[in-house]
C-alpha cells in the first residue's frame, strides 16, 4: 500500500528526515516510535502533505502512485488520513458542517452524490457511538474550546466518518487520560480492516497495549535505526531510547 524509499525532508534550512525506507502493506499496523526531535511527527506530516516541509529526496508510492506529487486534498480523497497531534480549532463553523463538507468532497471525488445534512446525521449516529459521544458535540464549533482529550476523540470521529485506507495517527495518545485512551484505541481497533492500514506515531508504548502493531520502527535523528515486532516497543519501554541510540552510535 505504501512504499517509502530514501525519503529526505527539511523545514527551512533544517533537514529532519535523512533517508527513510518503510513499507506498509494492507491489513498491517505499524508503530513509529522515537525520542522527541527524531522526526516521527515530520514523517506523519510529510505523508499528509504539510506545506511546512520540503521533500528534498526520495520517493513515496501509495497504491503505486507518486504520493508526493499529490495535493493534500487529493491524498485525503485517495484515502489517506492524518490524525493531527494538535488538531486545529475553527471557531465559526460547527463540527457537523465541517465534517459533512469533508465527507462530501471525498464522495464527490469518487463520483458519488453529496449527502444532505439529515442523511449525514443518520450516518453520524453510528460513528459517534464508536467514540462514546452524543450528538451535542456536532453543533459545537470545530475543536473550539475542546479539551485535549476531546480534540483527539474528534480526530478519531473524523477518521471513522471518512473511512481512510491509510490512517496515520500522530501522537494521538499524548495528553490522554486512561479513559480517553481506551476510547480512542477501541475506535481505531473497530476501524481496522484487512484492506486498510494504520501508522501509529508515538513516543510511548502505552497506546500499543491497546492497539497491537505488526511492526515497530524506531526513528532517531531522521532515520529508522531499528525495526522489529511488538516486543521491540516493550523493550524500549523498559530500557528507554538512549540504550538504542548508544547501540546504534557504537555500531556506526
Amino acid at each position: 500500500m505504501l512504499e517509502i524509499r530514501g525519503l529526505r525532508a527539511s523545514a527551512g534550512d533544517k533537514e529532519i528526515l535523512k533517508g527513510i525506507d518503510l513499507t506498509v502493506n494492507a491489513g498491517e499496523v505499524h508503530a513509529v516510535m522515537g525520542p522527541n526531535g527524531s522526526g516521527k511527527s515530520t514523517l506523519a506530516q510529510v505523508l499528509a502533505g504539510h506545506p511546512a516541509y520540503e521533500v528534498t529526496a526520495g520517493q513515496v508510492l501509495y497504491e503505486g502512485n507518486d504520493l508526493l506529487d499529490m495535493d493534500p486534498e487529493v491524498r485525503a480523497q485517495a484515502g489517506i488520513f492524518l490524525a493531527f497531534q494538535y488538531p486545529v480549532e475553527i471557531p465559526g463553523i460547527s463540527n457537523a458542517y465541517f465534517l459533512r463538507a469533508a465527507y462530501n468532497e471525498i464522495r464527490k471525488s469518487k463520483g458519488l452524490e453529496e449527502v444532505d445534512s439529515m442523511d449525514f446525521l443518520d450516518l453520524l449516529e453510528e460513528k459517534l457511538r464508536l467514540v462514546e459521544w452524543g450528538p451535542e458535540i456536532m453543533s459545537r464549533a470545530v475543536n473550539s474550546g475542546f479539551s485535549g482529550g476531546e480534540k483527539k476523540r474528534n480526530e478519531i470521529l473524523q477518521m471513522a466518518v471518512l473511512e481512510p485506507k491509510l490512517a496515520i495517527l500522530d501522537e494521538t495518545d499524548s495528553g490522554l487520560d486512561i479513559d480517553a485512551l481506551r476510547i480512542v484505541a477501541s475506535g481505531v481497533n473497530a476501524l481496522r480492516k484487512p484492506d486498510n492500514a494504520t501508522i501509529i506515531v508515538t513516543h510511548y508504548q502505552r497506546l500499543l497495549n491497546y492497539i497491537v502493531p505488526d511492526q515497530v520502527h524506531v526513528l532517531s535523528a531522521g532515520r529508522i535505526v531499528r525495526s522489529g515486532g511488538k516486543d521491540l516497543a516493550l523493550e524500549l519501554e523498559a530500557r528507554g531510547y538512549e540504550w538504542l541510540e548508544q547501540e546504534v552510535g557504537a555500531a556506526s
Partner: protein
Amino acid sequence: MKEAHLQEYGLKVPVLTAETPDWLEPVRKAGIDRFAAVGFPTARDEEWRFTPVGPIAQGTWRHGTGSTHGVTRAQLAPFIFGHPEWTTLVFVDGGYSEALSSTGALPAGVRAGSLAEALRADGAMLEKHLARHASIEASPFTALSTAFMRDGGFLHVPANTDLTRPVHLVFVSTREAAGSVTYPRNLVVIEQGARASVIESYVSLAEGTSYWTNAVTEVVAGANSWIEHTRIQRESERAFHVGLTHVEQQRDSHYRSFTLAMGGALARHNLHARLNGENVETLMYGLYLTRGDQVVDNHTAIHHDQPNCRSWEVYKGVLDGRSRAVFNGKVFVKPEAQKTDAKQTNRNLLLSDAAKVNTKPQLEIFADDVKCTHGATVGRLDEVALFYARSRGVPAEKAQRLLTYAFAAEVTSEVVLEPVRSELDRLVRERLGEM
C-alpha cells in the same frame, strides 16, 4: 461644499420648520451654526485621518426628493426578510412610503412609524429625546443631519412591554438618488423594562449609482430594558455613507448591536454608547466585508460613566482587492466607574496583498479598579488551518472560502434573533462565495 449647504439651509428652513414643531427650530439652527463653524472634516482631523471625505465635501448634493419613484414591493423583496407580520417601514430616497411599508400587530401603546408624521402628530413626546443624545459636536455630519433632518423611523416601546416582533427600517436609494443626499433620522425609545429588536437596512436598487446617505440614529435604553439593534449597510458601491448611532443606556439595561458594512465607496459609521447607570451591559459586534476600492470605517466609543458595567466588543473585517478598512475603538472609563469590565477586539483578515487596515484601540481609563483589555490583529488565513481542511479532502480554494466564512460566522452567530442571524449568514455567504 460647505457654502452650498449653508445656502441650502437658508432655502430649506422655511419648508422644514413649517412641517415640524417650534422647539425643533433652534435645534436645527444650532446644527447649522455648528456646521458653519467647523465645516467638513479633513485628513488633519484626528477623527478622520484615514477617511478621505473629500468627495463628499467637494460634491454638490441635491436634497433627496422623498418620492417613491414607482418602487414596487417586488423590487424590495430581496431586502426584506423575517416574517410578513414584522413591522417594516420603508423610506425611498429619504421619504417614508406608506404604500411600501407594512405595520404588523403591535402590542398596546407601541408607536412605530415615520418620524416626520410623529413630529406633526405628537411633537411634544419627541422633544425630550430627538437630537438630545446625538451631539452636534459628535461630528460635522451629525450637525448637518440635525439641521436638515426630515424623516426616518420612530419607535417607542412603553414601559414593561415586549415588542415581540422586530421593527425593520429600510432605507432604499433608487436610480433617481444619483447626486443627491438624504438624511435618515431615527429615534428609538425603549422604556423601562421593555424589550425590543430593531433592524436598520441601507440598500440600493441601482448598483453603481453615486449618492450620499447621512444617517443618524438615537437609541434610548430605559432602565432594565433589553435591545437588539442590527444595522445592515448595503449601499451601492459607488455611494457615500456616513452614519452615527448614539445609544443612551440607563441602569440595568442590555443593549447589543450588530453592524454589517458591505456597501459604499466610502462608508463611515460611528457607534457611541453612554452607560449612564449601574449594571449596564453593552455588546457591540461588527463585521465589514470590503472589496474593490471600498473604504469602510468603523469608529466606536463606549463611555463607562458609572460603576459595575460591562462592555464587550468584537469587530471583524474581511478585506479583498485594494479596499481599506479603518477601525477605531474608544473606551472611556470615568473615575467613578469602578469595577468596569471592558473588552475590545478587532480582527482583520486580508484576502489580497493590496488591501489595508488602519486599526487603533484607544482606552482612556480614569478609574483604578477595572478590567479593560483590547487586542487587534491583521493577517492572512492560518496556513495550518488550511492544511487541516485540505487534509480532510477539501480542495484548497474551497478550504479558503470555508475558513473565511468561519472567520465571519464567528461574529454573526452572536445575533440572538434567528431570522436576522440567518439573513446575515446569507449575505456573508453571498459575498464570500457559496460553499
